[in-house]
């Protein structure tokens, strides 16, 4: 925006406002603020007079303190910042950067670590289960082969060797009937 007489009026009003808030006297008027040496750069000198005490100027330290207290109100009145609206000899105090109670990076790190540990545990458990299944399959196969060997040697629950050796009698009906067969 262009700097014209209206802006100057606003500036005087804002400085008067700052003086009123600082000294808590309601006597400072807009007419008490005087501007001089306004240049194209938009830089100027200004003084604040005290109408109650025979038209003398308010000491510079008071004005500085008042402006320092209300700096952000003055800045926002003009839509400017500390960098773009400069008061010579009034340095701005720096505001500390906002720091959350837990640093953000720790939270992100926690999330990442949880994911990794979950992945590792999952893979290890899957590997162990796979190995157990493989072991179970191979032992099952071995057991089957063993059982096969045993069943061959058992007939009606009686082992064949005992039949042969001990309790067998020769059955004469079948054994001695050689004549029944036709000879070749």
């Amino acid at each position: 925006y262009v700097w014209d007489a209206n802006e100057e009026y606003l500036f005087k009003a804002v400085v008067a406002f700052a003086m009123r808030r600082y000294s808590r006297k309601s006597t400072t008027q807009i007419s008490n603020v005087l501007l001089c040496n306004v240049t194209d750069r938009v830089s100027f000198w200004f003084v604040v007079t005290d109408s109650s005490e025979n038209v003398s100027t308010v000491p510079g330290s008071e004005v500085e303190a008042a402006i320092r207290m209300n700096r952000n109100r003055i800045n926002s009145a003009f839509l400017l910042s500390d960098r773009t609206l400069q008061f010579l000899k009034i340095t701005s105090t720096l505001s500390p950067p906002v720091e959350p109670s837990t640093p953000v990076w720790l939270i992100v790190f926690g999330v990442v670590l949880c994911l990794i540990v979950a992945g590792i545990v999952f893979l290890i458990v899957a590997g162990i289960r796979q190995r157990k299944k493989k072991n179970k399959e191979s032992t099952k196969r071995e057991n089957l082969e063993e059982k096969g060997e045993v069943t061959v040697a058992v007939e009606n629950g009686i082992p064949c060797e005992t039949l042969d050796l001990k309790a067998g009698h020769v059955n004469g009906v079948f054994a001695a009937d050689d004549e029944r067969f036709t000879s070749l």
Partner: protein
Amino acid sequence: LSMPREIPREDGRPKWDNKFQYILSCIGFAVGLGNVWRFPYLCQIHGGGAFLIPYFIALLFEGIPLLHLELALGQCLRKGSISAWNTISPYLGGVGIASWMVSVLVSLYYNTVLTWVMWYFINSFQEPLPWSTCPLNENRTGLNEECYESTAVNYFWYRKTLNITPDVTESGTLQWWLILCLAACWAIVYLCTIRGIETTGKAIYVTAIFPYLVLTIFLIQGLTLPGATEGLAYLFTPNLNTLKNPRVWLDAATQIFFSLSLAFGGLIAFSSYNPPKNDCEKDAVTVAIVNSVTSLYASIPVFSVLGFKATTAYWDCLDRNIINIINEFDLPEESIMRQNYTAWMSLLNLSYPEKIAGLKLKSCDLQEFLDQSVSGTGLAFIIFTQAIILMPGSQAWAILFFIMLFSLGLSSMFGNIEGVFTPLLELRVISNSIPKELLSGVICLICFLIALCFTLGSGSYWIDIFDSYAGSVPLLVIAFFEVIGVAYIYKIQRFSKDVKWMTGRKLSLYWQITWRFISPLLLLIVFMAFITLQIQKPPSYAAWNPKYEGFPMKEEKTYPSWVQAICVLLAVLPCVFVPLVALFHLIQQMRRSKDPSFVPPEVFSRQGATN
């Protein structure tokens, strides 16, 4: 007398799920952080486009032949590096042990670089980015002094991340935040390599392809930034005069060699899991070309962003001067713009020279800003992070950038860890009793504990030492003995027959000539030149010392003698295994030849290879 050829039985050796996984793993191993932060730097300082000439010559005569040799060797012998070289000849067993040692040393420090990347990644979620502003000093009257004198980005890197000490002899303390990130990084590596290539083969799909996506995004974004064209023009304008400097040729040869990750044993391990009848010749050419094309492709966004950063710095410089002049002469706002700055300056210099001199304006030169070239960690963590602050939506760009760096580094770590893992699996002492998960866990745990040294205050100095000495000279020596071993001890005719059996084609003359003469000769020349350059000046390093008078410039210091001894040890330790093992077998051979009842061991090793 070639080995009798038979189709090997199912020997329970793990294999790749498909050919694409194998190629992607080799590409991921070769394409690493160096493609992003070393190649563009070399291109820039060695005359832009002109650097491509020695680069491609080195690729043709050194890179591709050595790569084909390693892939063919692994595929033909189907063993990791130690066993493979023992099979070629027991006298060459030291070559395998040397490459195993180098893989171990490189894995240690490489993952610490990834730790730094991870630290920056988890810090990128903060608004505003923590490296964009300086913190306040103790009594809140101003900014922190160290940060104020250098820049916020430098402060975050040197103080908040590394907490660097001013000297390599001062170890400082362990940085707990780096220990946490290091643990996370080694946990990720363990997660991906837990069962060898069964798990890395799945992980590689993400870690090898993702960087290309991000590079493309950065390419598109980078080209839209103001100043990108200046950066690209600066990068690619060829200056053929630089080719007269032999340093350029040396840098091209070493860059190609280290960029392809040769002589680590990782490539031999990867190709040993292949089916024997696989066209390794085409694979080698593919991997080498993709690696070089990636380097070129990566340098475009890198230089667009650097051009953007230089232009922004130049404009800042101009703006600061303009404000000073306007304030001094009380001129209206926007009377002096960047475009008519020079016209105004000449006018004012004529009319008010004393006032202008009194202002002490800095001279703003775009070339000067473009000339500030850095490679390595400085490029990623200082320059790029500064450029990211200036982009709109900086969190997203920072997150993308650091995930990309992490994927690039992780896929290279897979190759390094395979180079350590596969030979250990093949030692008969270990393989039957221990499950794979336990072995990889033990490897990762031991590496994590040793790498804790790099989280000390002086850790980054030690990483530079490891990088310059353990990751350079031994590789050249190993590669030289690899080529000589295959070409002259195993004999090139035998190897040709083996390769012909695998690929189905006769070895062309190009391979014969490069393997027999050109590559060994080139390696020898590069090795000599490298050593000569190292010896010429005492090894020094640049220390970050806030109490130095020239701060924020870094202080040049020389290494004390015990550190120099460690440097020499790192370079010599892997190489010494080559003559040691040869000597050991020679002595055994002489002792056995005196005793006539013993059969010479070579017969057994040949037979062992056919099983």
